[in-house]
């Protein structure tokens, strides 16, 4: 396609009004034509101004949904280990997830890329559960807090086929924890939630799941002191300190400290 032909199509291109073949031809030209790339940026800026005239308040739940999707994507980028990996110790899990997040996204190994597809699937399921919580409505504390979420982190599974997320509400120092795929425990056991940041884990609550393996709970969580939330299986009534390895871990909540 010649420079003149592209010139004629630039307006249509800026408005996404070209069929795929012409669009591809213009894009190829733009890669090597500084003048037209610059003109396109200008026309796109003009076109995007039209969006100002249709601005509309999004549903309040969309904000949490968007942040959850970004968090899931972030953890998908780091999650290369398949579900069913052997349980790991607290500190090892924390360090490993934290170090993965520092990886350059353009330097992932082929193995990491292979894990992404599986992790994205998990993220999608987690998001569906998250949306269900948001859409359920009602006046529960989780519903009230959902619109004020400031950070969302995925729970990474270790040795269990489960998933979940932690939604943090910074100005109240609370977190909504939701899990999916955790089998309901018998009367002698409970799931216990911990907040920690390298030092001694602090118990922040006990929870169980329903028959479908889902559970939601609001717990106290102060991200100015701790950035990791973990779930273990403990005896009924809870333990003062964890007695087993975490099966779900969310790291870098509201930042990596």
């Amino acid at each position, binding site marked *: 396609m010649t420079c003149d032909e592209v010139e004629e199509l630039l307006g249509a291109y800026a408005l996404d009004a070209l069929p795929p073949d012409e669009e591809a031809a213009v894009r190829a030209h733009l890669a090597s034509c500084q003048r037209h*790339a610059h003109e396109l940026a200008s026309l796109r800026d003009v076109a995007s101004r039209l969006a100002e005239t249709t601005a509309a308040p999004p549903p309040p739940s969309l904000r949490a949904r968007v942040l959850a999707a970004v968090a899931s994507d972030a953890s998908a980028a780091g999650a290369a280990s398949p579900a069913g990996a052997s349980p790991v110790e607290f500190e090892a899990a924390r360090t490993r997830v934290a170090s993965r997040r520092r990886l350059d996204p353009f330097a992932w190994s082929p193995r990491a890329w292979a894990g992404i597809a599986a992790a994205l699937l998990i993220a999608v399921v987690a998001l569906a559960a998250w949306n269900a919580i948001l859409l359920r409505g009602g006046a529960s504390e989780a519903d009230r807090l959902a619109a004020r979420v400031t950070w969302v982190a995925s729970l990474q599974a270790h040795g269990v086929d489960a998933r979940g997320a932690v939604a943090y509400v910074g100005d109240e120092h609370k977190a909504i924890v939701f899990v999916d795929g955790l089998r309901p425990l018998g009367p002698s056991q409970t799931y216990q939630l911990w907040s920690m940041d390298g030092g001694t884990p602090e118990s922040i609550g006990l929870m169980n799941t329903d028959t479908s393996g889902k559970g939601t709970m609001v717990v106290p969580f102060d991200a100015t002191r701790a950035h990791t939330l973990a779930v273990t299986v403990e005896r009924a009534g809870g333990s003062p300190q964890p007695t087993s390895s975490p099966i779900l871990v969310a790291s870098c909540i509201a930042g990596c400290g």
Partner: protein
Amino acid sequence: MQQGDQGAVAALYDRYGGVAYGLAVRVTRDATLAEDVVQESFVSVWRQCGRFDPARGNVRSWLLTIVHHKAVDAVRRRTSRAERALPEGPDDPVATYGRPDQAAELTLDAEAVRAAVARVPDDQRRTIEMAYFDGLTHVEIAARMGVPVGTVKSRLRIGLQKMREELRTKVLE
């Protein structure tokens, strides 16, 4: 914005979420689909933030370009499955630019844009709107307007250039 910097995504959403969502609703005419488009767009922005080049435009324009592209994609995928219904209602400026009860949500920017758009010749303005808001290709627009494709291409290009001039005038005012 850096990889993992969710705070920046939240800030971007708080600033442009309403414009992004409104655009997605206008193009898809489907609130559920629009939410998916907005969600995908922000994830896309987050993934590509390392490639964003400030010299080639501002963040706002970049985000809305992604939203528009994804919204148009969604509409064309839907159209390929079932013939899309024609846009409902008459093509009058009130329907196109928001109802009066939405006016309070709009910024001064929207007023300036509306005024600038109003000064673009009618056939160019309508052609741009069919492309931008209805997600039609130049071929589809030509068929609906009963004009040659070349005319549509020119109207889109010259109309945008005219709008640019008018917006610059507004900014200077």
